[in-house]
């Protein structure tokens, strides 16, 4: 009896909670279709007149394509580099037990916890003449993402039977061939997990571009929001439209790959 009343009640409670939870996003979506006068009034959720031109107006802004390009460059290179470096390193940390290997692995694990020291990192980049460059920013992003990637990949490779390597070795395969033709193809699921998690993190990140890029021509899409707000301070409809465009790539990826994303998160977190 308790169960029969309980279920619809629970569903109702969740529906109310979900509505409030979704409210800020709803406000953004509906707001992006309002006229500028309606949007700055803050008093009605539903647009009286639907204005579909807001997105076109935002997209015609001069710097948005440049920022989009910057975001794509920074995300793709930092993800690719992290994947390659972590896969290669984890092949050895998972398979070989030497004092050096366990020392290196410990050093990476420590980086899961320790915060980035911003000012000394800026100074290091300046010393390497990499401050305010994409290369410098990408390398810092890689350095801060390596600990989790190495942790994830090492755990995964440990689950691949060692006998695979050994039989390949007996067949005359060298290290490179064992890695490329046996291990790497099996890494596909963790490569997908790491790529999605990192894309969300890097695409949305504010602090790294803020600290390590001071030239606003190099800013990523989310950073451009600041410029945009000061330029269109009275046009909340355009601000909302801009926010949707900033979020769209990652949200679309999340909706499309939700199953993968969620299962990756689950296995990464709980098996660790």
């Amino acid at each position, binding site marked *: 009896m308790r169960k029969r009343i309980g279920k619809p009640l629970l569903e109702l409670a969740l529906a109310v909670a979900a509505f409030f939870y979704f409210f800020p996003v709803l406000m953004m979506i509906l707001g992006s279709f309002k006229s500028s006068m309606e949007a700055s009034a*803050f008093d009605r959720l539903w647009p009286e007149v639907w204005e579909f031109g807001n997105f076109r107006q935002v997209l015609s802004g001069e710097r948005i394509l440049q920022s989009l390009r910057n975001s794509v460059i920074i995300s793709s290179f930092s993800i690719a580099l992290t994947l390659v*470096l972590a896969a290669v390193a984890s092949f050895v940390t998972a398979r070989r037990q030497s004092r050096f290997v366990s020392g290196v692995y410990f050093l990476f694990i420590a980086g899961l916890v320790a915060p980035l020291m*911003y000012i000394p990192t800026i*100074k290091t980049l300046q010393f390497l003449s990499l401050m305010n460059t994409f290369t410098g920013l990408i390398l*810092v992003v890689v350095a801060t993402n390596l600990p989790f990637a190495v942790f994830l990949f090492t755990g995964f490779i440990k689950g691949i039977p060692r006998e695979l390597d050994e039989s390949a070795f007996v067949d005359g395969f060298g290290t490179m061939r064992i890695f490329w033709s046996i291990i790497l193809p099996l890494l596909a699921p963790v490569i997908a997990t790491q790529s999605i998690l990192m894309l969300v993190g890097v695409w*949305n*990140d504010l602090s790294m571009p803020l600290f390590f890029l001071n030239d606003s021509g190099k800013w990523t899409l989310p950073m451009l929001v600041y410029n945009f707000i000061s330029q269109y301070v009275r046009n909340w409809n355009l601000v909302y439209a801009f926010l949707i465009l900033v979020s769209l790539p990652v949200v679309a990826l999340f909706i499309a790959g939700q199953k993968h994303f969620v299962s990756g998160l689950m296995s990464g977190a709980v098996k660790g």
Partner: protein
Amino acid sequence: MNARRLYPHFFLYPALLIYLALFIFPTLFSFIYSFTDWNAYRDTIRFTGLDNFVKIAKNADLMLSIGNTVLFAVVTSIGKNVLGMLLAVALCSRIGFKRLFRTVFFLPTVLSFIVVGVLFTALLHPDGFLNQFLGFIGLEGLRQEWLVDRSVVMYTVSFVDVWKGTGFHMIIFMAGLLAIPRDYGEAAQIDGANPLQEFFRIKLPLMMQAVSVNVVLSLIAGFKVFEQVFVLTNGGPGYASSVLNSIAFQMFGDGRWGLGTAMNLILFLLITSFSILLLTYFKRKEVDI
């Protein structure tokens, strides 16, 4: 088989090189430079012992930012984990629309803080939706200047972060719950356990691993707070909502690098000591299924 030949150390070098140069080296660097008067206005750097830390201890604003960081980490960890656990339990029971609910609660996790910041600046505006809603349901008395009032601003920022982060912890709790064999719960029900007893006596102890991952991750993320404050209040009004990282950012801008690094080092010590304490505590509590 020759492990030395098959798994050569040089495979580690490229990753290690970047990691050492841009993470480990700056960290070690900060241990030294926290004890100097390193700044933008002089070429020479002098050791000043504990001067920076004495300065911090004597400065009420800086001490407030340390307190705010700890407050934020604790409040958001409790909020995210309690709410995340409630949602996970609800979404793991036999209800409809599971995927829709899961998507809605998880969605904020993939938004940028700048998006979250702008949306909540609008919602929490003195004439914004939240205050209008409170007036509408007859709770005029609860209306606040959410981002302006010194006594509430830190809780407002924490609330926004809980909104954004709960979905992530919910997913991890769901994984923990789904890993528990179904017959454990059934056996408890046959023995006459009520749902609360079943949760606290059976499920919670069996999902300690998910709990420990969640608590440690949320606390570490909470201590590292920066963007949340940066997008909502930029530390204001005054220093009322500043945190360790926002002060470090400000000190960098002011050219007071030694002092800024010392603030960053305090953050480092807070995070590592809390993590070590928690990890040893949870190690003892975990149960293998």
